């Protein structure tokens, strides 16, 4: 892909070195996803101007060792073997040079032109690690820059050294040949070289200086207090996200709605009624459904970024690991499932922190059972219609218990199929204060990614349901004569035994797009826009046993098309995506069936489907 006078620079580094932050700082968030021939993963890349030299920066996956056995390590090797590079930027954590110098030495062994950037220099200084960068540069025979990407220090010098290294070069080097043999040759001397480099240019503190981390860990990882504290922090976080996010989502929804009615509707007034409805209620509301999600997703990634970058996420993994290990998962899967109680979509995207594919897929399989806010809306409404307030609260609590139970049962059933062979060895980084700028930038990137992926998918889905409701031409929308009415009746052999009548069946069909549409769908079907009137109509048509069966089904089946889309994009497997959708449908059907039939046998609620 290099050529036309543009230099290609690869950014290589270990995990937890702030490499992505540094990449974003160097490229000013112009990064986009690039496809590289022969690679199975997407790499972020950006075109930048390095003091007059146009260059293309490619962010390689974080790896520990060029000779390592993980997927990411294989990807980096393939990249180096197939790409002509002008420069490799090696990013290391300055305070952990004692083990990270290995990567810089391996790059040197390959004979690639390199610049070494020692990130988190502020932290190294605080911990009493002092580095003689001039001596290190001389011994390694590559420029060394101490910097802090988080506090934006040393970035100018880094750019300067990168530009200088490129201008010194003689055009792009050939891709590395015989990479593995070349690395193997240098391996024996590696440990000796590291010791030698450390002796000549790095002074390590005689004792660990990070007393803040030591003290915080004493409390936060306490065998008794650790978990309750963790749950408290999580509860507060969810409260915060909902206190801010839900009003924002509603405000944005109202805004988009009035824009549609006030601006778009007059614009398309000249068109036939069917085309008007299609554009406004189909296409425009499809876009609106996706957009209204964005504030909550942004807040989620903001909160998740803080939890992760502060170092608490790895601690949560430590606290929950004993329990999760027995389910074939690990501590991180638990944290992500908790995230899923807000919205499943960012939680599934969050599984990227896992390297092992089996573990990642099993986590993606259980996250959709987390009772998300959209489902909670439906349950709060149904509970208020069918139960007295005190009982209603118990019903909602019961649904939360069911949500956990479904995740645990799923993990136990499939842990053999998605077994993870990667041992859990995680770094517990020192506690850090994330900067607001960094967190906002990161959340923004995630939101862009979500928008890019899900818009086509959701819009198509919403348009399809609208068409089902309004075809054949001239029918009353969502009536028994419409296609969706036919489908509702056609589903009766399957859904009838669960106590779900044709009208509820159509609502469930809407719910496949997004649970936000379920209440709106019921309103259209029962012809009652006012929630109170809708409640009355519903209570006349359905008894409480049927209502609970409907809620159980709603809880367990596919949360929404966004979730399906994101499972597809993250797993990169259509087969797994189908499996996930079908399993959740099967579990939903079975649970509702058992509940409804048992309740019928026990004589709860009047018999029969209306």
């Amino acid at each position, binding site marked *: 892909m290099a050529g036309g006078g543009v230099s290609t620079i690869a950014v290589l580094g270990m995990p937890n070195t702030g490499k992505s932050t540094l990449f974003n700082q160097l490229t000013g968030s112009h990064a986009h996803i690039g496809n590289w021939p022969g690679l199975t993963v997407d790499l972020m890349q950006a075109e930048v101007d390095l003091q007059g030299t146009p260059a293309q920066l490619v962010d390689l996956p974080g790896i520990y060792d060029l000779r390592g056995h*993980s997927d990411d390590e294989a990807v980096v090797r393939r990249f180096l073997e197939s790409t002509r590079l002008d420069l490799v930027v090696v990013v290391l954590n300055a305070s952990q040079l*004692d*083990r990270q110098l290995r990567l810089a030495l391996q790059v040197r062994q390959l004979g690639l032109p390199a610049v070494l950037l020692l990130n988190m220099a502020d932290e190294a200084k605080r911990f009493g690690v002092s580095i003689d960068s001039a001596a290190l540069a001389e011994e390694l025979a590559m420029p060394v820059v101490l910097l802090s990407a988080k506090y934006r220090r040393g970035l100018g010098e880094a750019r300067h050294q990168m530009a200088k290294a490129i201008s010194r070069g003689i055009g792009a080097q050939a891709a590395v040949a015989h990479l593995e043999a070349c690395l193997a040759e240098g391996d024996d001397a590696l440990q000796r070289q590291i010791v030698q480099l450390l002796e000549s240019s790095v002074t390590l503190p005689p004792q660990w200086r990070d007393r803040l981390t030591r003290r915080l860990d004493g409390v936060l990882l306490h065998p008794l207090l650790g978990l309750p504290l963790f749950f408290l922090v999580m509860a507060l976080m969810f409260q915060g996200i909902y206190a801010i996010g839900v009003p924002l989502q509603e405000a944005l929804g109202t805004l988009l709605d009035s824009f549609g009615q006030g601006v778009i509707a007059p614009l398309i007034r000249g068109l036939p009624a069917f085309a008007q409805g299609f554009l406004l209620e189909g296409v425009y509301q499809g876009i609106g459904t996706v957009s209204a999600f964005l504030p909550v997703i942004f807040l989620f990634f903001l909160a998740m970024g803080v939890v992760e970058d502060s170092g608490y996420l790895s601690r949560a993994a430590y606290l929950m690991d004993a329990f999760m290990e027995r389910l074939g998962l690990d501590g991180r899967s638990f944290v992500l499932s908790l995230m899923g109680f807000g919205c499943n979509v960012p939680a599934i995207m969050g599984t990227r922190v896992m390297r092992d594919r089996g573990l990642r897929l099993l986590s993606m399989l259980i996250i959709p059972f987390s009772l998300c806010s959209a489902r909670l809306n439906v349950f709060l409404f149904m509970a208020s219609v069918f139960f007295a307030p005190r009982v209603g609260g118990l019903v909602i609590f019961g649904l939360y218990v069911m949500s956990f139970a479904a995740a645990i049962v799923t993990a136990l059933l499939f842990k053999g199929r998605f077994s993870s062979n990667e*041992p859990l*060895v995680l770094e517990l980084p020192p506690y850090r204060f994330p900067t607001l700028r960094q967190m906002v930038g990161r959340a923004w990137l995630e939101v862009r990614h979500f928008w890019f992926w899900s818009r086509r998918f959701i819009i198509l889905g919403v348009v399809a349901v609208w068409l089902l409701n309004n075809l054949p031409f001239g029918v009353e929308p969502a009536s028994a004569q419409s296609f969706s009415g036919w489908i509702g009746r056609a589903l009766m052999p399957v859904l009838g035994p669960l106590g779900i009548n044709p009208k509820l069946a159509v609502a469930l069909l809407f719910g496949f797009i997004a649970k936000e549409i379920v209440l709106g769908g019921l309103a259209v079907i029962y012809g009652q826009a006012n929630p109170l009137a809708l409640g009355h109509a519903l209570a006349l048509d359905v008894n409480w046993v049927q209502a609970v069966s409907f809620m159980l089904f709603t809880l367990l089946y596919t949360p929404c098309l966004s979730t399906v889309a994101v499972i597809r994009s993250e797993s990169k497997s259509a087969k797994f995506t189908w499996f996930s959708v079908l399993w959740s449908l099967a579990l939903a059907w079975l649970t509702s069936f058992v509940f409804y039939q048992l309740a019928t046998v026990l004589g709860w609620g009047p018999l029969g489907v209306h």
Partner: protein
Amino acid sequence: MRTPAHLADLAPGQSATIAAIEANPGLRNRLEALGLSRGQRVQMLRRAWLAGPLHVRVGMTELMLRRADAARVGLEAGLDPWPVAA
């Protein structure tokens, strides 16, 4: 205090020197990349309850690892000559 044979059995506060990594190449590689290699001093910081993970420090890096994986890290025999760091 005598040093146990494996990292999995080290008591909180106790330090030891790593003698060997007896793991498959994949795990060995990962452990070494995180600093757990032959000749390094390792200190046990805490052990989670209910057979949960271990929290250790090696060099300038703190790690959590499962007991099964820590049982692959062999320690040099001998007394613990280093005092417990406060």
